[in-house]
């Protein structure tokens, strides 16, 4: 990509804005862009969602496959989560095998959902030791204007919550709803101009430093953390963003539960 020079100028501009407690799109430090959530948007998926945060747009689709349970866990099914950011979503993405960034993206979202235990893998067993459901959550970016992480995490849990196990199509019983106990949600923070901001836009990501992702469960329990990119942060900074994440995940959870 032909952008290495721009971030230097952008960084200077973002630092100047931060010193005056401003952001490049006039938001406050902890403000989110407009959030829209739609569900049941993909006719071929067993559960789906579309999330728009500002000009960032993503889809999540759930599919099921029948797997042989792992030998040491004969009564359990599986959950797989994969993220794809193809050239469709922005000029910086190249065709070819997934980049380290999009693998990180998928794995961080995966951990948040998996570790929250909201999918009961024991309930996915069909015949112990022989057949079990594998839930596959595919996250797919349409337009990247920053903060794909949060958009993917929201779309992912909304799609799972409405997924139907297509047992009839696989001739192993009757269709039933996938049990999802809980709504783990991620909040992401980027260091921009020397301070952390919530829900960074593409330009803030481009001219910013490290990022921190926090996934919290229904009761505020921490399910996954990830620090990405070069940068140093303090315990005080972390405490501040954790406080914001606690409030913000509650707000988003209310929106999802009212869908």
């Amino acid at each position, binding site marked *: *990509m*032909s952008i290495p020079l721009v971030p230097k100028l952008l960084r200077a501009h973002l630092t100047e804005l931060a010193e005056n407690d401003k952001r490049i799109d006039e938001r406050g430090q902890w403000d989110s862009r407009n959030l829209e959530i739609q569900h049941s948007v*993909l*006719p*071929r*998926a067993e559960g*789906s969602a579309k999330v728009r945060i500002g*000009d960032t*747009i993503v*889809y999540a*689709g*759930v*599919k099921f*496959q029948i797997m042989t349970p792992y030998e040491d866990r004969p009564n359990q099914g599986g959950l797989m989560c*994969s993220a*794809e950011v*193809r*050239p*469709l*979503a*922005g*000029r910086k993405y190249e*065709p070819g*095998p*997934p980049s380290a960034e999009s693998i990180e993206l998928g794995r961080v979202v995966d951990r948040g959902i998996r570790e929250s235990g909201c999918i009961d893998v024991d309930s996915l067993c069909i015949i112990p030791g022989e057949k079990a459901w594998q839930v*596959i959550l*595919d996250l*797919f970016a*349409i*337009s*990247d*204007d920053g903060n794909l992480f949060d958009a993917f995490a929201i779309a992912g849990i909304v799609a799972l919550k409405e997924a139907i196990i297509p047992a009839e*199509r696989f001739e192993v019983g009757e269709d039933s709803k996938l049990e999802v106990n809980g709504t783990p949600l991620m909040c992401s923070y980027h260091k921009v101009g020397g301070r952390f901001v919530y829900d960074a836009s*593409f330009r803030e990501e481009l001219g910013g430093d490290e990022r921190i992702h926090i996934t919290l469960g229904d009761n505020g329990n921490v399910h996954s953390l990830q620090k990405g990119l070069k940068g140093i942060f303090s315990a005080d900074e972390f405490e501040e963003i954790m406080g914001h994440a606690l409030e913000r995940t509650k707000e988003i959870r209310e929106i999802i539960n009212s869908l």
Partner: protein
Amino acid sequence: MGGYGDVIMIDENGKRMDGRGPADLREISIETGVVPVADGSCRMIWGTNEAIVSVYGPMEAHPRKIQRQDSAVLAVEYNMAPFSTTDRMRPGFNRRSKEISKVTKDALESVVLLELYPRSKIQVNIEIISAEAGTRCVGLTAASVALADAGIPMTDLVVSVASGKINDIVVCDLNKEEDNYGEADLPMGILPNTGELVFLQMDGNLSQEEFKQAWDYNMDAASRVHEIMKKALIGGDGK
């Protein structure tokens, strides 16, 4: 072509399983500007097919060795999203997608005025979000709309439609069942203003008469689809 002759897909009155007559198209809608970060984009819904296309460029061709001194390079990526099909589509290398990307690129290169942008690159990304039948046609048609939305000069739009044969009867715009159990499929890429072709494939078994009929169906359908494309680009949203 599956060629299972015992599946009845059209009755004696010429009515198809989804209620269409032989020459009827599935329902089509087009919306432009659906990828806000792209230079041009469109969503095309055709039956239960859904394609999203984004266009980036003209931009610097990178790495330099792909640059052409006398024209732009056009790169086309056709891909099916993992949740676009009944059985999950595994991401990664796929011979079918490579071929469709190539023939789509060949078709679009025939209409885009690449010589206006030496040493640059125009990237066209076709993502099939939901697949029914005829995704290559939807992808190519939508790509030409997205290129127009990006303001890239072209000699014409490209309308791509397919006709085929089910139970020995030629019909236009095969749906999923008709495509699975039908006996032939003839997709064409047509320039609606001149009736010329930039894309042609066929597989199956058609007599000369049937072939002529399928060809004519495609030509007729192209002008109907063209109207919808024009409306999406110039009408409605005040562009």
